[in-house]
């Protein structure tokens, strides 16, 4: 059930009416309804994986209680490891097993790509990487005594399976989301309006921008050897906007949907193409994932070191490689992560001018935004080539073709004037960059007729100019 489907619209209306129909401050029945709806929502994709979702939730629920109640450090650690091993084990079995076995066996054969050596070939459960990371962070936080273990199984199950963010995030922390299931929700008119506006904006980004842009990207990346430098550059730049609008559009719908039920989810994107550096990009792109790796991988690695450049760089490379691998079991994703690590580590190289400590990031803050945006966008776009290419060789071949200035005899916009949707998006976001999203608190600057005209125009664009329906890219992760 995709967010941009008729089915989801119907599902949302029914759940919404039932939820508030129960009345405000009816926390337990509302939680029970949300849990039922979330399991239904997930089961529609593949009911067989409901068991996995439930098992993950139960193991983490009981492990956290045991961690909290155990007085011995060994016992606490054991229960934490139980939780981590389960979550990482599930991830490994469903997502990485084939990749590792294939590459390991490939080391001993002449033609590693000739066969797949999987002993079994399973489909990856939707949203696996998102909910396992969410539950892992819960166990770790309880172990670190940052939060209390949830005593209510119902609330914990709701926290893990909350349908707006279950399959593609934002990756929520228990300390932010779990308490919201523990308190009464009252209907908030303004919040509901904001929810609908954010859903509308998310659908625009996904259906009008991402799906139309995907036509170009798919066409050119299907046979990059047929295209010249300009076409490949164009497709690579557009891929950035495709993936951004696809994923941030999803996040907007998720956050907006949660608002309708009285919940607040974390912001996941903050106009990443306005980053001055690659380092800043990761503070604006998939923010909840970056924070997760900062808190649970990067931070712990440098914690016991003298925090100098060398150790920070080691921690950075490990974190970014894992972020790459988090996206999927492919060398292209690993290369994507390593590329980001290399650029960030270069940006962080310390040097001294007139006795003062500097690095490239500090230098970049002093030059005009337009120039730094070009710098960071060029690097991010290059890393996106690894993200999108079918394999490493393909990625290098595309980069080589772009760098070789091969004439683009067959260059065309492909989607014609619809490329204007990207410009429309950029203008809207740049001019409202201090807001959560462009339609946020629109009543403060527009009268009702103007507002409704804007809404209807966006709806018209969604109905009239949808791109071919594409799966949300991040669902596969």
């Amino acid at each position: 059930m995709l967010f941009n489907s008729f089915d989801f619209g119907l599902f949302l209306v029914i759940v919404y009416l039932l939820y508030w129909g129960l009345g405000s401050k009816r926390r337990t029945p509302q939680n029970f309804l949300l849990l039922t709806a979330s399991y239904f929502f997930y089961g529609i994709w593949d009911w067989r994986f409901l068991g996995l979702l439930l098992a993950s939730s139960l193991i983490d629920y009981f492990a956290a209680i045991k961690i909290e109640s155990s007085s011995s450090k060994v016992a606490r650690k054991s229960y934490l490891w139980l939780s981590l091993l389960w979550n990482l084990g599930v991830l490994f079995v469903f997502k990485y097993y084939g990749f590792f076995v294939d590459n390991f066996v490939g080391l001993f054969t002449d033609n590693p790509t000739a066969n797949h050596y999987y002993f079994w070939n399973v489909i990856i459960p939707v949203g696996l990487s998102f909910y396992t990371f969410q539950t892992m962070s819960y166990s770790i936080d309880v172990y670190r005594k940052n939060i209390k273990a949830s005593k209510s199984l119902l609330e914990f199950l709701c926290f893990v399976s909350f349908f707006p963010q279950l399959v593609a995030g934002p990756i929520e922390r228990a300390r932010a989301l779990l308490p919201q299931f523990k308190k009464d929700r009252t209907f908030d008119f303004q919040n509901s309006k904001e929810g609908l506006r954010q859903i509308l904006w998310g659908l625009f980004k996904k259906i009008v921008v991402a799906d139309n842009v995907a036509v170009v990207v798919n066409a050119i990346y299907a046979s990059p050897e047929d295209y010249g430098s300009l076409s490949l550059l164009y497709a690579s730049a557009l891929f950035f906007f495709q993936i951004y609008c696809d994923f941030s559009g999803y996040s907007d719908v998720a956050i907006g949907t949660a608002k309708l039920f009285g919940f607040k989810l974390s912001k996941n994107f903050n106009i990443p193409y306005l980053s001055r550096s690659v380092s800043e990009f990761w503070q604006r792109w998939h923010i909840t994932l970056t924070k997760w790796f900062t808190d649970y991988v990067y931070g712990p690695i440098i914690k016991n070191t003298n925090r100098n450049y060398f150790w920070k760089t080691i921690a950075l490379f490990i974190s970014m490689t894992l972020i790459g691998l988090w996206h999927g079991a492919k060398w292209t994703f690993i290369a994507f992560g390593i590329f980001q690590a290399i650029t960030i580590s270069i940006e962080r190289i310390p040097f001294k001018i007139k006795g003062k400590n500097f690095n490239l990031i500090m230098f970049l803050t002093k030059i005009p935004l337009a120039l730094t945006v070009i710098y960071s966008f060029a690097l991010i776009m290059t890393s996106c080539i690894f993200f999108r290419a079918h394999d490493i060789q393909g990625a290098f071949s595309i980069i080589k073709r772009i760098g070789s200035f091969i004439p683009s005899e067959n260059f065309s916009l492909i989607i014609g004037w619809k490329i204007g949707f990207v410009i429309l998006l950029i203008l809207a976001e740049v001019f409202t960059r201090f807001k959560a999203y462009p339609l946020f608190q629109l009543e403060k600057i527009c009268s009702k007729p103007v507002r409704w005209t804007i809404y209807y125009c966006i709806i018209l664009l969604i109905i009239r100019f949808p791109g071919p329906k594409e799966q949300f890219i991040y669902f596969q992760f």
Partner: protein
Amino acid sequence: MQKKFITYCLLFFLPVVVVLVGFEYTTRNLPTTYAKIGALSENKKDKIEIMFLGSSQIQGGINIKYIDIPAINFASGSQHHREDFAIFKQTKDRYPELKYVVFELSYAHLEIPHNDKTFWKNAVYLKYYGVNAYERNTYFKDKLIYISNPDLFSRQLYNFYISKPVKNQFTLNEYGFNELNDTGSFKVLNYDTSKIKKNNFSIRTKELPETFKYNTFFFENMIEEATSSGLKVIIATIPTYTTYNNARNPNILRRRDSVLNKVKQTYKNVSIFNLEDDTINFKVTDFKNENHLNPKGAEKLTKMFNIFLKQEVLDD
């Protein structure tokens, strides 16, 4: 507050729903090829003896009017074997007199990936032909025509109701064939062969061996299904212009031809109607563009097919 919010939502979304219903209603009233073929399928189901399936090449290349036996042409632009097979399997039993089925196997057919299950024309097949090509249970929304391809149908609605209709776009004969639509790049170039020689056109030359394997297996299944249903199968290829023929990838062509030969040798009830390289009967003025016939070319081809049908097949 909740009631107020719901009232606001209803008030806000009411015009959207009304507009969508209006679009859907008017789209359904467009005189489209699908509607004509759907009606033909219903009205002549007891008589139809031959069914054509394929892509735009068969759609624009076969005018049923010139076939002596009752026929129906389900071919349609971008339609691939996946849809052909769905239409064939789900309609063949409706026609008690059905004896022949025509499958298309153009030059690159076997190396073009099939459309996926969300192909927009699935809605059209379901609505007009009663064919479920979604490969899953269908619901009300699956029959909605306008939202299946808003871009295309918005243009058609505009052309039909508001602007002057693009010349003869909606003039279809009773078989859903547009006999007046000869507009194409060749006409624009005034059928000047020297200009046509320099004309840029797209042709698939990329080799996809894995797709070939899958598509060939699928295609053989189609033939198996048709022959085991007691039908005679005719595999057709449509004439293409010299510049197109010269630009074909010889490997793709060789693989396609090997499948044609194999099928011919393996199945008794299969005939091949291959006019792809016919440069004697088909002149530049018979083409709309490099790989599509215009109505004049279609008349010629259909008459030739009619003769072929009598000689090669009816004689058996």
